[in-house]
């Protein structure tokens, strides 16, 4: 057990063995047979790989979840877990099979097929800025800073470059096989943390005696409005590009649906470990910084070998998200923003996507270094913008209601509503500060979809 968070030689060996293993996997699967093989693993993704890849990709920043649990208690499981399970279930039962059968490759391509070329181009721009993994790059930098005393930029450069290298070398196959390794490491790391917290600190009694009373209630100290906002935020899953990518790559519609259902099971188990990890951190280190208390607790209670595993798990969770986002960003460039012409060969498309992986990783790294202090606000606005604009056109279109022009109108409405509200919040207008920008964005998007959708029907009746 060590009292500081600086890396031991075991940590060094474990982290670099992990990094070497991911590069080896990227190299091992680098034999590609055409564009579909490189971009979608030949559309032959089996159930276990689907599950492992989706679970690890979805979890990017474990410290983010534990920080909310530290501050708000069990309510974080409601806002960061339970609402999301509802959204995953909607995705599994209503969208997954349709996407797996569609034959498309990207979310913008799917939106284009539903609502036309303008909608596709707009979706591509929104999607690209949504997937540039700025926040996760920063996790790499901060982790390297804490463990190795490296400057943040060096951690971003070293680990970001490793993620970009194996993704570009092996394509989507490299992404999913490294995701599988990362999935295993993440599960082992957070489970070890809970087992040691219970055995070294105590069980339910320890938490009940040391936590504020509202920390063990499911509604916690959050307002009803805050909880409703999180419920809407969870629906952004319906336009998550990584869910779409895996459904397009699934070997069958059944694998896509069942894969998400099994992934929910893992997310529940994982969320319990991270939420209670955050609660243990609050109970044991109540005056510590909430964003790092979980990591500090890990350093205090885990024995040497398992502590190294814990650091690798944190790194793996960020890298599994970075590789997938960089790859989806690269495909947005090569397939949607600069679509292949009839003369484009498979080789050209693969080359363009490889360049896109490096470009997206480099952009994320540079933005993470520039906006290291204020990235959260920017990242949240970009995420809200993309979700508010695309959520309804994608979901309603896939469910069968796609009146001409409505999708594009709803996207413009959703994006301008979100941007407008974010501008009001930036000006610190009190009534605007009470509501997240996503809500007015989604409301305006819905209004536009309904109005434009109903007008042609009325005209036709007249």
């Amino acid at each position: 057990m060590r009292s500081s968070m600086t890396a031991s030689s075991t940590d060094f060996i474990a982290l670099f063995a992990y990094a070497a293993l991911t590069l080896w996997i990227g190299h091992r699967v680098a034999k590609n047979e055409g564009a579909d093989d490189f971009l979608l693993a030949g559309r032959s993704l089996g159930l276990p790989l689907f599950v492992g890849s989706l679970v690890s990709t979805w979890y990017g920043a474990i410290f983010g979840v534990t920080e909310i649990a530290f501050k708000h208690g069990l309510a974080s499981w409601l806002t960061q877990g339970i609402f999301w399970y509802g959204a995953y279930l909607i995705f599994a039962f209503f969208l997954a099979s349709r996407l797996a059968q569609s034959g498309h490759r990207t979310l913008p391509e799917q939106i284009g097929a539903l609502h036309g070329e303008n909608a596709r181009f707009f979706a591509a721009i929104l999607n690209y800025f949504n997937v540039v993994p700025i926040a996760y790059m920063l996790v790499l930098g901060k982790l390297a800073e804490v463990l190795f005393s490296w400057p943040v930029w060096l951690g971003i450069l070293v680990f970001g470059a490793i993620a970009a290298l194996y993704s570009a070398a092996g394509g989507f196959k490299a992404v999913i096989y490294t995701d599988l390794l990362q999935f295993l490491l993440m599960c082992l790391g957070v489970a070890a943390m809970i087992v040691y917290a219970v055995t070294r600190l105590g069980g339910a009694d320890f938490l009940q005696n040391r936590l504020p009373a509202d920390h063990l209630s499911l509604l916690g100290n959050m307002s009803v409005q805050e909880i409703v906002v999180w419920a809407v935020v969870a629906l952004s899953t319906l336009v998550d590009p990584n869910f779409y990518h895996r459904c397009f790559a699934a070997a069958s519609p059944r694998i896509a649906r069942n894969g998400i259902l099994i992934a929910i099971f893992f997310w529940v188990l994982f969320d319990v470990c991270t939420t209670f990890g955050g609660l243990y951190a609050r109970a044991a280190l109540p005056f510590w910084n909430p964003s790092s208390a979980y990591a500090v607790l890990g350093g205090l209670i885990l024995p040497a070998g398992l502590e190294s595993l814990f650091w690798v798990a944190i790194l793996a969770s960020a890298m599994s998200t970075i590789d997938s986002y960089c790859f989806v960003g690269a495909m947005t460039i090569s397939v949607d923003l600069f679509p292949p012409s009839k003369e484009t060969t498979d080789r050209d498309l693969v080359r363009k996507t490889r360049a896109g992986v490096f470009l997206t990783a480099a952009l994320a790294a540079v933005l993470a270094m520039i906006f290291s202090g204020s990235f959260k606000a920017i990242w949240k606005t970009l995420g809200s913008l993309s979700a508010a604009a695309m959520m309804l056109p994608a979901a309603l279109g896939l469910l069968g209601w796609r009146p001409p022009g409505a999708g594009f109108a709803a996207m413009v409405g959703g994006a301008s509503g979100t941007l407008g509200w974010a501008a009001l919040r930036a000006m610190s207008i009190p009534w605007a500060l009470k509501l997240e920008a996503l809500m007015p964005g989604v409301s305006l998007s819905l209004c536009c979809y309904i109005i434009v959708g109903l007008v042609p029907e009325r005209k036709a009746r007249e």
Partner: protein
Amino acid sequence: MAFDWTWLLLFDAAFLVVGAILIVAMVIRERRKPKPPATCADGMRQKAGVGDQHGAGQSEIEEHEHG
């Protein structure tokens, strides 16, 4: 006496570890399984020990495909 849910936490962690190991084991098993031939003709090729579309065995394959 209040309900002691400590064991639920430990079960959760144990399920997570066992589940993750199972998923990885399933992938390894899937990869070790020989891939089924993609088409009937491929199957004939494999059975006849023919490398690919060149040379011996071609007529037999064509016969099967048309038959």
